[in-house]
C-alpha cells in the first residue's frame, strides 16, 4: 500500500503538471487516525498530503457531481466499488465520461474503525501495513498482526469487484476477490427475512424503520441518489412530511429503496454511514434479487450503456398479477362451478 501510495502521488503530480487534468480528486488525512476524507487537489505542491491507506473507504465518484457545472477536467481515483458508482453516474447522464480521467485502484478491503477499536488496536497506532491476507498494526513500540477479514468492513468481506471495472490508468496490481462470492451469501439476509411470516417481517422492519432519524446520510452518500433536487426535499409537493411519525419513516425508506431499484450498485455505503444501523442493504438487495430473478442477472454500474431494468421491458416479462386467472375455455367452465 505504501509503495502504491508513492505511485499515486507521482501520478497525481504528473497529471497536474502535464495539464492532463485540472483537478485531482483523492483522499487526505484528517486529524483522527481513521480519518481519510475526500479532497480536491489543484496544485502540485499540495499532493504531498494526498493519502492512500486502509481508511480510504469514501467513494470519490459521487463528488464529481460538484463539478458538473464546470468544464474542468478531473482526475479521480477509483476503487472497485467507486468504479461501479462512476459508471452508474455516467449511465444516469450525471457525469460525462470524457471530462474525467479515471485512475483505477485495486482494493482488497477497507478497515472498519469500530472493529479496530473493539480489538483495542488503535492505541498509539501509526500505520497499518498489509502482508498477504494479514494486516500489521504498527504502533511506536510494537507490531500486532491480525487476519485482515477480522477488521475489514462487513461490506468488503464478500466484495465482488475489488478491481475497478473501468479506468484509464491502473495503479498497482490487480487483486483477487476474497470471501465467498456466490449469491447465497449476498442474499442470505434477504432469504432469511423472506422465509419469515408476514407479521414477523413487519415486526423486523418496523423495528428498523422506527430507528430512523431521517438524517438522509444514506441518501447523501448513495451514488445512485444523484438527482439535482431530491423528491424528499420538494417542499411544494410535500411527498414527505417533517414530523416524527412512523408512517413517514416507512414511506421514506420504501421510496428511497424503490428509487434506487435497478441502479443500486450494492456498495453498501448507505448501511455503513447510517448512524442508527438500519440494515438498508437488506432492502436494496431484496430489489436486486427480485430484478435478477424476474428480469435476468443485472449488476448496476457494470455497463454505462446498459438499460436500467426499470427503464425497459420485455414482452415476455413475468406477470405475477393475473396468476390463476388465465387459461383456456375449460378453465373458465370449471371456475363457474
Amino acid at each position, binding site marked *: 500500500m505504501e509503495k502504491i501510495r508513492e505511485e499515486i502521488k507521482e501520478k497525481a503530480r504528473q497529471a497536474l503538471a502535464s495539464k492532463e487534468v485540472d483537478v485531482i480528486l483523492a483522499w487526505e488525512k484528517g486529524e483522527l487516525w481513521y480519518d481519510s476524507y475526500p479532497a480536491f487537489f489543484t496544485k502540485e505542491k499540495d499532493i504531498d498530503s494526498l493519502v492512500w491507506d486502509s481508511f480510504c473507504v469514501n467513494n470519490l465518484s459521487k463528488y464529481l457531481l460538484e463539478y458538473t457545472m464546470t468544464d474542468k477536467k478531473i482526475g479521480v481515483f477509483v476503487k472497485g466499488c467507486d468504479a461501479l458508482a462512476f459508471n452508474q453516474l455516467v449511465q444516469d447522464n450525471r457525469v460525462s465520461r470524457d471530462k474525467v480521467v479515471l485512475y483505477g485502484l485495486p482494493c482488497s478491503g477497507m478497515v472498519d474503525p469500530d472493529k479496530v477499536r473493539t480489538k483495542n488496536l488503535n492505541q498509539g497506532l501509526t500505520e497499518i501495513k498489509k502482508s498477504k491476507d494479514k494486516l500489521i498494526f504498527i504502533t511506536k513500540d510494537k507490531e500486532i498482526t491480525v487476519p485482515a477479514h477480522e477488521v475489514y468492513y462487513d461490506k468488503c468481506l464478500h466484495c465482488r469487484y475489488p478491481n475497478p471495472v473501468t479506468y484509464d490508468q491502473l495503479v498497482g496490481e490487480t487483486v483477487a476477490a476474497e470471501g465467498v462470492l456466490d449469491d447465497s451469501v449476498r442474499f442470505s439476509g434477504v432469504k432469511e*427475512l423472506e422465509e419469515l411470516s408476514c407479521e414477523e417481517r413487519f*415486526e423486523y422492519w*418496523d423495528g428498523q424503520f422506527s430507528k430512523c432519524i431521517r438524517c438522509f446520510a444514506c441518501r447523501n452518500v448513495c451514488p445512485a441518489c444523484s438527482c439535482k433536487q431530491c423528491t424528499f426535499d420538494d417542499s411544494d409537493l410535500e411527498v414527505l412530511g417533517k414530523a416524527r411519525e412512523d*408512517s*413517514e419513516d416507512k414511506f421514506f425508506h*420504501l421510496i428511497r429503496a*424503490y428509487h434506487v431499484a435497478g441502479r443500486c450498485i450494492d456498495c453498501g455505503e448507505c448501511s455503513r454511514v447510517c448512524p442508527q444501523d438500519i440494515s438498508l442493504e437488506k432492502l436494496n438487495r431484496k430489489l436486486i434479487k427480485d430484478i435478477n430473478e424476474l428480469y435476468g442477472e443485472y449488476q448496476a454500474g457494470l455497463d454505462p450503456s446498459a438499460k436500467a431494468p426499470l427503464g425497459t*421491458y420485455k414482452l415476455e416479462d413475468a406477470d405475477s398479477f393475473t396468476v390463476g386467472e388465465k387459461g383456456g375455455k375449460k378453465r373458465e367452465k370449471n371456475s363457474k362451478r
Partner: protein
Amino acid sequence: MSVVASSTSVKNVEEFEPLIVAFCCNWCSYAGADLAGTSRLNYPANIKIIRVPCSCRVNSNFVLRAFQRGADGVIVAGCHPGDCHYMTGNYYTRRRFSLLKNLLEYVGIEEARFKVDWISASEGNKFAYVMNDVLEKVHKLGPNRKLRDSRWKR
C-alpha cells in the same frame, strides 16, 4: 380480560368498512368500470376510483400515500399487456409494480392489500369480480395499521 378484548375485536371487525383506492387507466379499466356500471354489476361502495391516463402514470408514491392516509387496500388497474393505448405503458407498469408489490410484502404488508390487475374496457364482469375479491380479502385482514399515518383521521 381476554374475553373482553376478543369481544371488542369482533365488534371492530363487524364495524370495519374498508377503504379501497383504485387507480384506473382511462382507456381500459376506467371504461371497464363504466361498463360494470352500465351492466349494473354490483360491487361494494368501499371502492373509490381515481382516473389516470395510463397505468404507467401511477407513481409508487401515490400507492404509499393512499396507505398512509388510511386506505386499507390499493388497486392499480390497466389495459392488458399488449393492449396499452399508449403502446408500451403498461409493460413498464408491470415491472414497476412487480417490484413494489414484492417490496411491500417483504416489509410485512399483507399481499392482498395491494392488487395490480389488467382489466379491459370490455371486462365489466372482471372489474366487478376483482373489486369484490379485493374487498373480501382486505375485509378479512382488517384495517391497515401498518402504513397508516397516526395523525390521519381514518
